[in-house]
């Protein structure tokens, strides 16, 4: 069964396409992540799929229905967690959940959802008095209270601490285990890798990759040598061809090596002579982040 089907979708703002003829289909019961830099068109897709924005051209079917014409019954089958919170801060957590639950034919029990998002202790606290992370959990709770068949998550864990992120991952995993289809956008590649079985990468309104995480990670990229370095570390004795691979942001030496044995020997020899700490040394196949960054930097090397 197909939960989402998109064909030749175009969305133009003024004369420029935010989405430039994209197409994909998502099977029911799966988790798919939309990745891409800011401005790639991820949120635009979410808005069109949820009926909040009208496409310029193309065909969109969500649960077999055109979102622009989706009746109440259709809306009762989707759940949306947008980037902004979108819940009145004057309400308590329980009031908000009860309020939204009434609109669905078979909502999840409020107590169950409170337990799921670990806010039972704050059930009667006004949302305005909660921390940012707790508010985000309430936001997710309202998104799932209607027991959606299809859940849209737009950057659900942005701003959350690592523990809260993992808690939300558990919530999403539990929903997927119950048969919910999930489409999420995220800037966290570990999140995409953990949750999604399929990654769709957008750049400039076009799809440049559509593959499982492992396939994206292991595409035609050379193995990588990673070595975190302190600020101001000397590169004396290290060949320029290798020293040039220092990441200016992180200070990390990150070498995509075509000759792993030779390059690693050179780095180890240089480190020994310069007393460089090798505790953080990593050698192996490229990470998903490496693959993603390479793809975004050079969309021509797409994986479709």
């Amino acid at each position, binding site marked *: *069964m*197909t*939960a989402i*089907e*998109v*064909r*030749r979708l175009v*969305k133009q*703002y003024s*004369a*420029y396409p*935010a989405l430039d*003829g*994209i*197409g*994909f*289909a998502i*099977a*029911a019961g799966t988790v798919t992540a939309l990745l891409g830099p*800011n*401005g*790639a*068109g991820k949120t*635009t897709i979410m808005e069109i799929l*949820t*009926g*909040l924005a009208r496409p310029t051209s193309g065909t969109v*079917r969500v*649960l*077999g*229905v055109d979102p622009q014409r989706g009746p*109440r*019954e259709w*809306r*009762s*089958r989707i759940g*949306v967690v*947008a*980037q*902004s*919170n*979108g*819940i*009145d801060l*004057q*309400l308590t957590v329980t*009031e908000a959940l009860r309020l939204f639950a*009434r*609109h*669905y*034919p*078979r909502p999840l029990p409020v107590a169950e959802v409170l337990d799921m998002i670990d806010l039972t202790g704050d059930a009667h606290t006004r949302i305005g008095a909660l921390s940012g992370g707790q508010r985000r959990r309430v936001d997710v709770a*309202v998104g799932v209270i209607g027991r959606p*068949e299809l859940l849209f998550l737009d950057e659900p864990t942005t701003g959350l601490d690592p523990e809260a992120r993992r808690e939300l991952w558990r919530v999403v995993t539990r929903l997927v285990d119950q048969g919910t289809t999930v489409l999420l956008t995220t800037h966290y590649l570990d999140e995409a890798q953990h949750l999604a079985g399929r990654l769709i990468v957008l750049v*400039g*309104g*076009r*799809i440049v990759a*559509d593959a499982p995480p492992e396939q994206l990670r292991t595409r035609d990229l050379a193995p990588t040598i990673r070595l975190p370095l302190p600020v101001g570390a000397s590169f004396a004795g290290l060949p320029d061809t290798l020293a040039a691979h220092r990441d200016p942001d992180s200070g990390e030496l990150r070498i995509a090596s075509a000759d792993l044995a030779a390059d690693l020997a050179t780095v180890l020899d240089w480190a020994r002579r310069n007393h460089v700490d090798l505790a953080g040394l990593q050698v192996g196949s490229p990470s998903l982040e490496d693959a993603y960054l390479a793809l975004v930097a050079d969309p021509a090397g797409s994986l*479709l």
Partner: protein
Amino acid sequence: MNDASATTSATISPPGHRMPALWPLLAHQVGYQLRLLSRTPRAVFGSILMPAILLALRLGRLDHGDGAIATQVAPLIAGLTVLGLASTAYVTYASSLVAARQDGVLRRWRTTPLPAAGYFCGRMVATVLLAEGAAAALIAIGIAMTGMHLSAGAVPVLVAVVAVGALAFAAIATALTVVIPTVDAAFPVLAVTFYPLVLLSGAFGSLSTEPGWLTAVLSYLPAQPLVDAVTGALRHAGGVPPLPARDLLVLACWGAVGLTAAVRFFRWEPTRPPHAQTARPAGVSGPPAR
């Protein structure tokens, strides 16, 4: 892959559960909006407390031995009733609607099974109820402090006038939110229209120096007909007063204009601030996508 995969599209069967009936949902929307209003100090103060305090102060300064007190009290109560009503149905309504749009609350409701009209019905009915309550409180204060007589037959007329007035102001406020991008911009836009309107219409007492042309203009704006209609009902000695048809017609016209403009131009989506407009990737020109 710039086209859909070969997977066959199929409508996933709906669960077959019955959707909740709309009328109970509307009732819950009204309760929800009233709860929000009751927890918004600005709304409570502007709608009830401020007019009540002003009324008590003004009534305290009236000469109770003066035989003309009966003629002074009714327009005073009417003016302050309209002040509270306009504060509720215009200023509070519009600013809270802009805030809801800016905070993504409207967007959230649009993705639920609640029909768009249901959301606005809830807001407007809650606004009418608050305006009715505020008017009742002011009239009760007037009666308690001056012994003013209120004809039982005038009550349904007052209820109708306040309801139509609140709906008219709320409809105008809904339309006005189209030109108010953010909460920060709401106060200047609302204040520049609210204060002249209610002051010139006699919310704080009659302005005897108004030129004739201004009086004529005010009679076609929403506040003055509302003041006149409430004053007429309060002054009615006995039986059911006649409906103030002309005043109600003016209010209904304003309501219809506001509603038409709102239906045509209302925006559910927040105005995106410049810092939220992200740049396109290198090599891609044009306005930002999202």
